[in-house]
């Protein structure tokens, strides 16, 4: 049987919607099902309106769905706002004792608060009861939920685990006893899973640790604070240092200091915070210091909508900084991509001694998905030309030149503190030794040396991938977190007889000019799909290839694309 079931859990900030969503997801994941979880929240801690969506499938899932099968409403507003999103036969779970509505057929009242107090001993358990109730409605295996609760609350002691399990059980039993039969949709485990369930931030932070990033400095900012927090939480066990800096300027400059000293180092911020790091980016470029910066996009300009998603910083990333220097900008599309591109970011940063930007957005940062466990044996650590103590010795005392002219433009690195060599570099223009200069000739050679490195970077970049048949008539083009939505839109459109494929760009700089040009030359019609108002990828494609994309599907309200939305927009243009 095909399962494609979406829960929407709505209420106020502070009601613990996220833990309902997470517990449900984990329980399904443990049952071998595929899960996608996304969050919509306001820039506040309590109150307002917020929701979490959990989509469960028996096949891999890459994105959210607009069609809701079960609405778990912790307040009345949720019902008012989202009732219409329910599919036919979709259920509403709510606490009828607290939310006085005219209960229609699909409204299943569960005394959440009462059960929480009775069985869990506290109102805090309301969300656990709700989680249990949802599972009961679907007749899912309760033990898997119990496992999740044990893991989640294990740290807090046995008592806490027990009362949570009891509360969940109470909801489960209540729903099952009262509504099974009337409500007959069922989800069953597919088998025991070996999949992980994590979000983009966790994937990047994990990728960084795996890649050997030992130092992170950052200033908290949505949507990348979790990257900092995750890294900080692993400091003791993995020999890391995290510094919460006084501002973003300090963060990137600390990272440069650490990179100079020979350690893999990273910072994470939002586009607006990155605006404060632009000078530092240039410093990394000038001193040829490898650094990695994660930039999480959210709507702007300035502070904008702090907790929402956006893809409007693409051109900013490519052009940021005075004068010209090589950089790479990665735009991971999925959780897996986020993990592997982070590792690659460190490799490229060190091999070419350049800054690498990992450009994500709130939607990728905050959305969870079930993915196959990363195979760590496949991780390659490439630190580039790094001279050993022996090699330094062989050069003769103090003959090392940090910015030596080479054919590739890459000058071997040395670790400051190595006997017999000095590592000298400068934010000013400098000579091979790293000392400040004024003359035109050295300047010209240094500029060319730095720019030459970009040729090497270009060769490292894998061509963008096509999803669907190579020779489709219509090509949908995207970058970043829209991968899932476009991919599913392609599936749907093809089913509906529209010959479409997807071109996906997860490295926007160096831009894969030839490949994109080739694909566009083959397509009869092309669309870009972007979370911005002007079509920045379309602009970049035109700048780089001279080719115009035919249509733009743009959205800049801070909310992610759904496949349905894309399908509708494509059809409008294709039929019209």
């Amino acid at each position: 049987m095909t399962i494609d079931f979406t829960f929407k859990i709505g209420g106020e900030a502070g009601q613990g919607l996220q833990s309902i969503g997470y517990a449900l997801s984990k329980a399904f994941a443990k049952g071998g099902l595929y899960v996608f979880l996304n969050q919509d929240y306001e820039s506040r801690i309590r109150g307002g309106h917020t929701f979490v969506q959990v989509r469960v499938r028996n096949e891999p899932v890459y994105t959210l769905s607009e069609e809701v099968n079960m609405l778990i409403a912790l307040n009345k507003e949720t019902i008012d706002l989202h009732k219409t999103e329910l599919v036919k036969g979709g259920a509403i779970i709510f606490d009828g004792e607290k939310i006085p509505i005219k209960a229609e057929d699909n409204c299943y009242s569960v005394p959440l608060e009462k059960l929480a107090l009775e069985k869990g001993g506290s109102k805090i358990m309301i969300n656990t009861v709700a989680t249990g109730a949802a599972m009961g409605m679907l007749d899912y295996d309760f033990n898997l939920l119990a496992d999740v609760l044990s893991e989640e609350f294990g740290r807090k002691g046995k008592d806490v685990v027990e009362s949570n399990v009891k509360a969940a059980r109470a909801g489960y039993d209540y729903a099952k006893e009262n509504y099974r039969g009337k409500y007959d949709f069922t989800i069953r485990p597919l088998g025991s899973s070996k999949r992980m369930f994590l979000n983009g931030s966790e994937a990047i932070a994990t990728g960084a640790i795996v890649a050997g990033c030992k130092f992170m400095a950052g200033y908290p900012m949505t949507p990348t604070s979790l990257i900092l927090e995750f890294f900080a939480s692993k400091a003791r066990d993995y020999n890391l240092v995290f510094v919460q800096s006084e501002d973003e300027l300090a963060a990137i400059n600390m990272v440069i200091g650490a990179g100079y000293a020979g350690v893999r180092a990273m910072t994470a911020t939002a586009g607006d915070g990155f605006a404060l790091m632009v000078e530092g980016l240039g410093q990394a470029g000038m001193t040829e210091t490898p650094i990695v910066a994660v930039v999480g996009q959210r709507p702007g300009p300035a502070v904008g909508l702090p907790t929402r998603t956006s893809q409007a910083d693409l051109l900013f990333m490519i052009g940021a900084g005075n004068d010209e220097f090589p950089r790479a900008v990665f735009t991971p599309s999925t959780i897996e991509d986020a993990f592997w591109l982070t590792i690659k970011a460190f490799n490229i940063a060190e091999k070419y001694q350049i800054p690498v930007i990992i450009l994500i957005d709130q939607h990728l940062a905050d959305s969870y998905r079930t993915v196959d466990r990363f195979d760590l044996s496949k991780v390659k650590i490439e630190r580039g030309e790094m001279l050993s103590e022996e090699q330094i010795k062989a050069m003769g005392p103090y003959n090392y030149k940090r910015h030596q002219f080479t054919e590739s433009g890459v000058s071997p690195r040395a670790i400051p503190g190595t006997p017999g060599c000095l590592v000298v570099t400068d934010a000013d223009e400098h000579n091979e030794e790293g000392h400040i200069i004024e003359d035109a000739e050295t300047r010209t050679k240094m500029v060319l040396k730095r720019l030459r490195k970009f040729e090497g970077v270009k060769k490292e970049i894998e061509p963008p991938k096509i999803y669907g048949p190579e020779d489709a008539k219509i090509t949908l083009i995207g970058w970043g977190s829209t991968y899932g939505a476009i991919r599913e839109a392609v599936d749907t459109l093809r089913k509906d007889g529209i010959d479409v494929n997807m071109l996906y760009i997860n490295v926007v700089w160096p831009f894969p000019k030839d490949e994109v040009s080739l694909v566009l030359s083959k397509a009869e019609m092309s669309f870009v799909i972007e979370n911005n108002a002007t079509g920045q990828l379309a602009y970049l494609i035109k700048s780089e290839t001279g080719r115009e994309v035919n249509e733009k599907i743009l959205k800049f309200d801070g909310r992610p694309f759904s496949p349905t939305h894309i399908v509708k927009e494509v059809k409008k243009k294709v039929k019209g």
Partner: protein
Amino acid sequence: MVTLKDYEGGPTAWCPGCGNFSILLAVKRALVEMNLEPYQVLIVSGIGQAGKLPHYMRCNTLNALHGRAVPEAIGAKLANHELKVIAVGGDGDGYGEGGNHFMHAILRNIDITYIVHNNQIYGLTKGQASPTSDKGFVTKTTPEGVISLPFNPLALAISLGATFVSRGFAGEVDHLVELIKKAMQHKGFALVDVLQPCVTFNKLNTWEWYRKRVYKLEGTDYDHTNRLTAFQKALEWGDRIPIGIIYKSDRLTFDEQLPTLKKGPLVKQKIDPLACEKILDEFM
């Protein structure tokens, strides 16, 4: 034995008579007297006349952005705490552009020495007021004289709990050498603010002006361990200007408090992807 020759660098671009020469000499002498080899030392400098210092000697050098010497020094120190890290810059660099980093470095008590060439003027950009310019001082950007109070780095440092707060004078090189040595021996963030005549742009605070006013705390009965009297001493500016250690105390450094660094410098830690399986387990 390390000698001054080991630290000899290329030609300087400072004006003849500039106080920076004495500071350069003092830094070199301090390093020699501490018997440190150039490769063991990292100088991170800002942008300005002062920021050029490491280019005129020999050691590991990271000439950072204007105002950012301190954060770059912190990053380098935490990455390799076996390095002797000195940050160097001007008064505009450190107290203007870099003011925020200065404050937070004090709070962290990172184990670096910070030498500020305080000439009370923007030298390299040709004579604008600096945060430490005296009130009334006429400069290119203050044609009617400075109207802000001068920034008092010593009082500020003491107020934030700095553990080593000192002032030197370019005209007292022997004294300065001792200060720098003590600052480097001190565990924690050590400030050495150095009065440095800018012979070209600061016609107010000249060699003479300083010489007349400066007096050494060493040899007086001044007690640099009392925070309150230290604060009072830090406020002294005018007819008499104290030099020497103004305040010194002990407190755990940032680096000492990091469990990770007990296992050796970060830069020497192995990279081992396979050791990370446990993180993945958490997501299962």
